[in-house]
């Protein structure tokens, strides 16, 4: 994990920041542009899977898996969901069910990351490793968001107010935690920890 991988994290942080800002401005102005969430989720998938690709022996398969997941997500958002909804515009709303699949993937990737940390060259202080903090970030964020997204569809159809409340508390809390942990990971300089 070198400078190139750190750049991916910076790109991820920038994308997350731009998405959060866009969502906040739109909400302040009373607009809803929910499709940006779907775009961000696809972007997030490519950035995170690109970050973890060097860990795998067969990098081509890892990339292929990301592409297949993204294609499934797009197909699920555009074509499968309209059969379940009455309003055509709803096809662009945040696809939580397929998104949960992405977060399950991030949990697995973070676990693989921890496994590689424990089986790779021994670090004197793991808390000084950027890769450790990246895994912590994605494991905590993805495990919380995964469960929330699994049930969010059900809540959204049954109780809109509760859905909004959970979004502004649980999801935002997890999002803030992710940003803090990511900032910690990015603050660690290259070569701080020597095996």
């Amino acid at each position, binding site marked *: 994990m070198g400078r190139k991988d750190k750049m991916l994290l910076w790109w991820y942080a920038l994308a997350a920041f731009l998405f959060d800002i866009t969502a906040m401005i739109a909400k302040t102005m009373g607009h809803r542009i929910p499709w940006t969430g779907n775009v961000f989720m696809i972007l997030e998938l490519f950035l995170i899977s690109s970050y973890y690709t060097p860990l795998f022996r067969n990098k081509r398969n890892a990339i292929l898996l990301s592409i297949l997941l993204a294609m499934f997500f797009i197909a699920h958002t555009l074509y499968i969901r309209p059969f379940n909804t009455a309003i055509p515009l709803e096809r662009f709303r945040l696809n939580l069910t397929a998104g949960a699949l992405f977060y399950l993937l991030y949990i697995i990737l973070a*676990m693989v990351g921890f496994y590689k940390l424990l089986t790779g060259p021994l670090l004197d202080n793991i808390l000084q490793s950027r890769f450790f903090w990246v895994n*912590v970030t994605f494991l905590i964020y993805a*495990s919380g968001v995964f469960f*929330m997204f699994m*049930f969010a569809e059900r809540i959204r159809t049954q109780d809109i107010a509760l859905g909004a409340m959970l979004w502004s508390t649980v999801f935002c809390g997890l999002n803030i935690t992710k940003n803090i942990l990511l900032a910690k990971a990015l603050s660690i300089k290259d070569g701080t920890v020597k095996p």
Partner: protein
Amino acid sequence: MELSNLSIVLLGVGAMLSLSTGIILFVVMYQRRVVSHKHELAIIQLQKEKELSEATIRAEEEERSRIAAELHDDVGATLSSVRLYLRNANKEGVVNDAVTLSQELLDESIGKVRAISHRLQPTMLQHLGLQKALQSFFDVFTKTGAINIRYTSDALPPLNDAIALAVYRIVQELVNNMMKYASASIANVHTLAHNNMLQVRISHNGEGITEDSFNEYLEKKNASGLKNIATRLKALSGTIEFANTDNQYHTIIRIPL
């Protein structure tokens, strides 16, 4: 009792976060345990290396003492007997150039054997201490006229035998190397004890070596003298440093007391 949607989500998210935290804690604690185990192994390894170095040095010193004793008591005594016979032959009138020459060569050989014996087993070190032994060792070189070695020393605390012998041997090796390779005409040696550390500084006006070249020599097959220095220093947790100032090369040895 049916759980509300809110409770399901909160409990589920809470459970997932607890699980994640558990995994992270496991990773941190496991890694710390491995690091601690590695450090323990490194300490044991270091201890073993130190014991091995000490045993090597001890065996070497014992062998030197044995050879010194053999030279002094056996070869030296035999040569002295031969000299006695030659003197008697001289008295009995069997005088010729060959006998006289043999006598001279024999005297020279006895002197050399004695010198080698003393070098191998520095009795002066055992009886009079490091400073006197070093002074005596340097005087031998100064008397040859090839080099002038000036020795000065601050008051030293009583040294244990292992440290005194190691310092003597290291200085012996460094001075021998200086005589062989440095082409120096003046050398200054100073010993002092400061902050629980014994320091020996050897300075000369010849060609000295640098830290890099010293480390390079240690990697090579020969250079057993320098390797011995490194082994002795390692056994005593000592250090060697090289410096070059005002056309003077300095070698500084530091050994914790």
